[in-house]
């Protein structure tokens, strides 16, 4: 009885995972090794197993490499920026007078709960070359107006900025809560021992928040690899494909050009990359809790 009750309890969860994760995963894996396209849909007789041909195709596809580079750039620049901004705002909120806290917390968290599409459209106006607020501010301080969404380099920066702006509030809330859990006495001791503000931040606050930061980094990495809505609305992948993310490319290939085989291969590659990142992160010691 005892030996089967455990497995019985996890069975429903396992069944759900199998149904919604494992089976689709195997389906996509299978699909990625076929030529599934519009002609196959017309007649299943056209379906062929083509092994790794889709992967070879993607390997030689410059657009795929560019999408990988763009997405990687957003992940590598966006995740640290998000964490830093989350941390700074969390510490700021916790250090200001309590009656202002609610206001700032709401203001910083608002982007998280806003619809990405609405947010991206608002940013489109802010980033407009001629009429946008950002360029007006730049000009006001004697800097040149920038062609934010028209230059391949600036567009990637703009996308990263929007992604970070949209996401940092979540980490801020979590980090503010974690910061509140740190006893004030730890800082009292630091003051008595003569540790300054910078030292308090670097040798107390950051190390204690490290496990939380690690968790947020994991979530952000997973989220940013799946970059889609921001470039979809802001730039549609342009200019010159500079803001085409892997997921956006997958969408184009699969749902606009009916090349499901190639799109599935892209999905598999994205999955493997994300696995790799999660694995790397789990094997990097960022947490004192793991001992």
């Amino acid at each position, binding site marked *: 009885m005892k030996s089967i009750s455990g497995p019985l309890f996890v069975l429903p969860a396992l069944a759900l995972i199998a149904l919604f994760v494992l089976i689709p995963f195997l389906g996509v894996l299978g699909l990625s090794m076929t030529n599934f396209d519009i002609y196959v849909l017309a007649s299943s007789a056209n379906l062929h197993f083509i092994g790794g041909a889709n992967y070879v195709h993607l390997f030689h596809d410059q657009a795929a490499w560019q999408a990988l580079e763009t997405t990687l750039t957003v992940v590598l620049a966006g995740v640290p920026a998000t964490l830093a901004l989350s941390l700074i705002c969390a510490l700021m909120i916790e250090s200001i007078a309590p009656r202002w806290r609610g206001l700032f917390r709401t203001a910083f968290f608002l982007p998280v709960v806003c619809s990405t599409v609405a947010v991206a459209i608002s940013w489109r106006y802010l980033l407009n070359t001629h009429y946008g607020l950002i360029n007006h501010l730049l000009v006001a301080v004697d800097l040149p107006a920038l062609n934010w969404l028209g230059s391949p380099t600036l567009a990637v920066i703009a996308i990263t900025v929007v992604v970070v702006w949209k996401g940092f509030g979540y980490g801020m809330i979590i980090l503010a809560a974690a910061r509140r859990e740190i*006893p004030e*006495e*730890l800082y*009292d*001791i*630091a*003051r*008595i*021992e*003569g*540790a300054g503000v910078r*030292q308090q931040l670097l*040798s*107390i606050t950051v*190390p*204690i928040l*490290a496990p939380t930061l690690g968790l947020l980094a994991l979530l952000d990495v997973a989220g940013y690899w799946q970059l889609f809505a921001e470039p979809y609305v802001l730039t549609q992948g342009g200019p010159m494909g500079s803001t085409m993310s892997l997921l956006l490319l997958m969408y184009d290939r699969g749902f606009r050009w009916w090349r499901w085989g190639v799109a599935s291969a892209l999905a598999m590659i994205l999955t493997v990359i994300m696995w790799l990142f999660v694995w790397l992160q789990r094997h990097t010691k960022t947490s*004192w809790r793991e*001992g």
Partner: protein
Amino acid sequence: MASLELSHVYKVIGGRQTVLHDINLIAHHGELISVVGPSGCGKSTLLRSIAGLEEITSGDIFIGGRRVNDLQPQQRRIAMVFQNHALYPHMTVYQNLAFGLRARRVARSVVETRVRRTAVRLGLEALLGRYPRELSGGQRQRTALGRAMLRDPEVFLLDEPLSSLDVPLRSEMRRELMALHKSLGMTMVYVTHDQSEALSLGERVVVLSAGKVQQVDTPQEIYGNPLNRFVAAFVGWPPMNFLSSEILGTSAMDLQNVEYGVRPERLMLQQHAADDLSVSGRIECIESLGGVWQIEIIHNGARLIARVPPDAALRQDEELRLWFGRADLYAFHKTTGARVKVQR
């Protein structure tokens, strides 16, 4: 020379709430002073003010003869131990001990030597590589003490350092602390809400209530000669019995407007001297504490507690007369609470 001196120290918050009210206190070098009072009486604020973690509104604080009002905490030559130990969870015992020395940029070899010496002294040498969460309560306590000792302070401030420990450990640590105090010869200010701890540890005891010093004296004097009703009621367990002059009846002295008090352990089952006083009442409950019984009697609606030797003759709901010597009777002014001398 006084190790610590507080002179007319006030702390007022927001211009209205007086947290510390005219505190005057002198601690001599090597003295262990305990500060006791109910929660919210200002004892932690007092300690934090001495440490410089909080600013005082007026008055002066001297440590080692130096006025420290305008000095930062790290310049005041104090060390502090907190109730929750305040160990850094992400640092090993060694790192926790070394934290202050590192912050002050002491040479690595010196740090190593001093940390090891202190660890040996506190029996922590085998635990230097452990993290706080891998330590027992007592070991954490010792680490916190060690960190404070490494500051080599003029005054050692302890804020309820034992209250997070469980009871058996607490008395053990109390003994260790006293031994430590003796061997270090350091001035200590020990804050607690537990009056028995305050009495057993302190060479002198400061009783604090509502931000005011009620009495400063040796434990014996605090217990035997309380200056007012608050001190009398706060110190001693079970607490002192209070009786109105009506209850005490004709046998009482002819004092007006007073309230009488007698400690439970002074109530006796027999008359010992001719001029002994007595009260009688119905036994409400008998509680055996082993070698001693705790009895509650109701007299004219007032409840009295007595600690007496076990006596099989005692029955619940029976009438009982309890005796006490005139010397054991205290009198307090009904409105001011000040002690009134009883004519004996």
